């Protein structure tokens, strides 16, 4: 059994570069098993880069990313995926040359314990109706987001990285995604969420980290949210 005091994901002094530009300057945070943790911050704070560095998509990186006690910093993104982490990228990454069904079945199952297709359709009934659609990119923005989340639930990954899943979506769809995230948490998934919309984040998250200029500058739990609203407004500029 996993030691409950060890976090599922522990990020220490994570630094990352895009070519010459130094984007992350030592990011520290951790995510415990079964938690929903949100990274908040303005545009360009380094939230997406943090996700991509954990996933190994940004390859120029140093520091430490430990998942289930295993060091991932030197690994390639395909190895990191097989360690049990799955990413739902900000731009959703639905493939135009694949049908909806092919998009849904694309990520390979890496270990047992993923959701069955029926369970995924219970979460996203729209997807089942659109399964025959010839092109994944012909779906609406909301449906594409559901497809992007749905496809990583099958794989058996225990940690889901969701990068701004509500961006550009209608309020009713945002509510549905919030419901989905809460349901996934109940089913034992651990989720690291990147959000700009902290009102949405407050409906799903257990803890928050605030990022600025490639560093974590503050953190608090959901219970401490009300006391920190003023500060948050300042951080996020809202």
């Amino acid at each position, binding site marked *: 059994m996993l030691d409950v005091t060890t976090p599922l994901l522990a990020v220490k002094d994570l630094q990352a570069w895009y070519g010459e530009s130094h984007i992350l300057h030592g990011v520290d945070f951790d995510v415990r098993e079964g938690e929903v943790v949100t990274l908040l911050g303005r545009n360009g704070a380094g939230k997406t880069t943090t996700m991509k560095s954990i996933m*190994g998509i940004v390859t120029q990186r140093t520091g430490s990313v430990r998942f289930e006690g295993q060091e991932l910093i030197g690994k390639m993104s395909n190895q990191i995926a097989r360690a049990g982490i799955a990413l739902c990228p900000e731009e959703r990454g639905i493939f135009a040359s694949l049908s909806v069904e092919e998009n849904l079945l694309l990520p*390979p199952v890496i270990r047992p314990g993923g959701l069955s297709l029926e369970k995924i359709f219970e979460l996203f009934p729209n997807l089942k109706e659109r399964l025959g659609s010839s092109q994944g990119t012909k779906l609406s923005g909301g449906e594409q987001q559901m497809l992007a989340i749905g496809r990583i639930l099958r794989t058996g990954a225990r940690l889901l990285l969701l990068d701004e899943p509500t961006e550009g979506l209608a309020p009713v769809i945002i509510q549905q995604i919030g419901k989905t995230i809460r349901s996934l948490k109940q089913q034992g998934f651990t989720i690291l969420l990147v959000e700009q919309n902290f009102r949405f984040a407050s409906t799903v998250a257990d803890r928050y980290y605030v990022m600025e200029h490639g560093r974590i500058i503050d953190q608090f739990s959901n219970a401490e949210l009300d006391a920190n609203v003023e500060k948050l407004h300042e951080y996020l500029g809202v």
Partner: protein
Amino acid sequence: MFEIFGIPSGALFGQLLIGLINGSFYALLSLGLAVIFGMLNIINFSHGAQYMLGAFVAYLILQYSGIGYWPALIIAPLVVGLLGVIIERVFLQWLYKLDHLYGLLLTFGLALIIEGIVRNKFGSAGLPYTMPESLRGGQNLGFMFLPNYRAWVIVASLAICISTWFVIERTRLGAYLRAATENPTLVRAFGINVPVMITLTYGFGVALAAFAGVMAAPIYNVSPQMGSELIIVVFAVVVIGGMGSILGAIVTGFGLGVVEGLTKVFFPEASNTVIFVIMAIVLLVRPAGLFGRRA
């Protein structure tokens, strides 16, 4: 025998058959080019040389080890495909992020080197390759005479083309390939080893060329320049079909072979240029090609 438009049926169908044979080679070669371009973004100018190498491997293993045509159909693509894997690892993998021109120049240089080495060793005169015993002779169909070997080439080429299309468009492996063509970074982040997949794709495309080379050996002589003569037409086929389109490569390969054959019957003077005329028209009207997805 009867006449169609004043032309004896034997002559007409004979040219049609030659057109289909040429079309079989156009289709196999442009299919390999399309697969390689789609996945690697490389315009593989050494494709003709790799086709020629396939024929030479078949010739050499027959000369020195007595290994005949049927095993050569498997051995030559494996040997040349392995060479392709080495070429991809040593040279091509460094070029993916650069302009197409670099890949084209590199593979063009490789083609010249491969052809030069083979010419230096074997001379430029064609070497004969015996047809397999089982495919000699032919069938009299009444309206024309159909040599067995040529019928085999058409059937084999069609079978390979259709299977390749099926794998790419209808299977899970094909879905990985198509997805990796669009967004390799994300496919890799799903746990798929995309670099290995790219290497094997190049190996497969090259093996297709070598397979075509073995099939060509009994029809044409085995010679160092057999690939460079063919490859220019094949590139025209690829441009007409649309760079990177699998179905386009197959349909235009066979189609243009037939058009070329028919031109030989009705207007022989134009038969060598008709494909290039069509290419020019297609480029003017549909620059992305008849089946092309991107400009």
